[in-house]
């Protein structure tokens, strides 16, 4: 529910800034432009810059502090707890996607971890070999026919997304049981999502640090990674016949590529 507010803020910023990239005329550049699928790049880069500043000033230090202060087993318990809270959202999406078996499994995971895992603190389900299965509403929309996620979007705080998945995030946050259970205690809800933010950021510390050190254009790297990874998830879900087992959809496609002139 709260996330929805952010999405309106994001949409508002789109309208205000109206930061559209100009479409190139050179055929090679046009191909790159179309592949990036990022007509709002100037605006996205602005929001990305904002996110990086917030990250540098607040999220990253908080995540580092959290890692220093809270011992690893406790952090694992916290991660399990939050993951468990999301299961009802995954469950509803599995049903909406017409995946009864998956829904059953997710319900089983939720039940096992809630009852035997002490309100989700222990991941008992994994010990029982119930696999992790995440299903969001963006995927549900894809199953319903919105296969193309539309242009790339960077959301404030939430980061990389696209138009379809932004709508998905809105619906998913509407489904989140925490927001319902605590709807009369908004500060508690902020607190819960705040802790959630720190623990998610903590998990990404090593990888994002490494990515920051290694990328010559972090914005472009994250865009590429997000788009590829999301495409794989959607392809897998749709069991796309053209894309067996998530083979990437590119060819090493230059005529002089792999020439044997060594």
């Amino acid at each position: 529910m709260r996330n929805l507010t952010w999405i309106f803020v994001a949409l508002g910023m789109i309208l205000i800034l109206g930061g559209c990239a100009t479409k190139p005329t050179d055929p090679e550049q046009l191909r790159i432009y179309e592949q990036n699928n990022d007509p709002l790049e100037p605006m996205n880069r602005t929001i990305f810059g904002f996110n990086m500043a917030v990250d540098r000033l607040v999220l990253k230090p908080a995540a580092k502090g959290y890692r220093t202060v809270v011992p690893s087993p406790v952090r694992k318990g916290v991660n399990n707890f939050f993951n468990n809270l999301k299961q009802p959202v995954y469950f509803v999406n599995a049903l909406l996607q017409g995946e009864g078996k998956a829904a059953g499994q997710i319900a089983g995971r939720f039940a096992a971890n809630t009852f035997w895992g002490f309100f989700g603190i222990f991941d008992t389900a994994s010990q029982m070999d119930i696999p992790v299965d995440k299903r969001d509403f963006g995927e549900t929309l894809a199953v319903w026919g919105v296969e193309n996620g539309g242009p790339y979007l960077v959301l404030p705080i939430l980061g990389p997304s696209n138009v379809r998945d932004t709508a998905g995030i809105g619906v998913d946050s509407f489904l989140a049981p925490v927001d319902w259970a605590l709807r009369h205690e908004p500060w508690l809800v902020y607190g819960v999502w705040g802790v959630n933010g720190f623990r998610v950021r903590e998990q990404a510390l090593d990888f994002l640090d490494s990515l920051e050190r290694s990328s010559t254009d972090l914005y472009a790297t994250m865009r590429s990674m997000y788009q590829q990874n999301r495409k794989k998830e959607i392809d897998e879900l749709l069991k796309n016949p053209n894309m067996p087992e998530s083979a990437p959809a590119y060819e090493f496609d230059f005529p002089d590529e792999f020439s044997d002139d060594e």
Partner: protein
Amino acid sequence: MKKLYAFVWALMMLPAVAFAATPAVSFVNQLTDQIIQNVLASDKPKEEKLVEFRKDFTEALDLKSIGQFVLGVYWRKATPSEREAFLTAFMDFTTKTWADRFDMYHGQTIVFTGERESGKNQVYVDSQIQNNPPVEVIWRLREKNGSYRIIDIIVEGVSMAMSYRNEYTSFLQAHGGQVSALTRELETKSREFQFTDSLK
């Protein structure tokens, strides 16, 4: 002696291959075993690990093809000496980038699940890193004169080659298409890596 050791190790690792091992799968299997044993799971000092990793990595990668692919349209516009300088900087930097992630290894094993064709003289080798949830890794190989070289590694749908290509294209667009500017940037970032290493 080292070969014999690798062979014995390969035999021990046989159960990890869940189906009849083809030459392509054996190639990747041997490489990952080597890297896990000599680098990731080893308690050698970081410098030695880096040397070992660089050696394994350089031998296994088809660097020229990857370099060509990641520069995309800008490869054709670059002069031979610019290409050469880029490939050297790219290799050096990529090795360090990966070495930077050694510490993320926590004893996971890798299981090979299949092999598919991916174009002329090219195959995909499918594998899974045993984690919760498991991580899907696809190795894209190119065969030349009967031996294999890696041209791409695809982790959970994210192709290394494609990611570099998108990143470098974006960098080059912002720098007037100057490959030499990218090479300089990689060299600078590479020196910064040494700096962070010495801090550890």
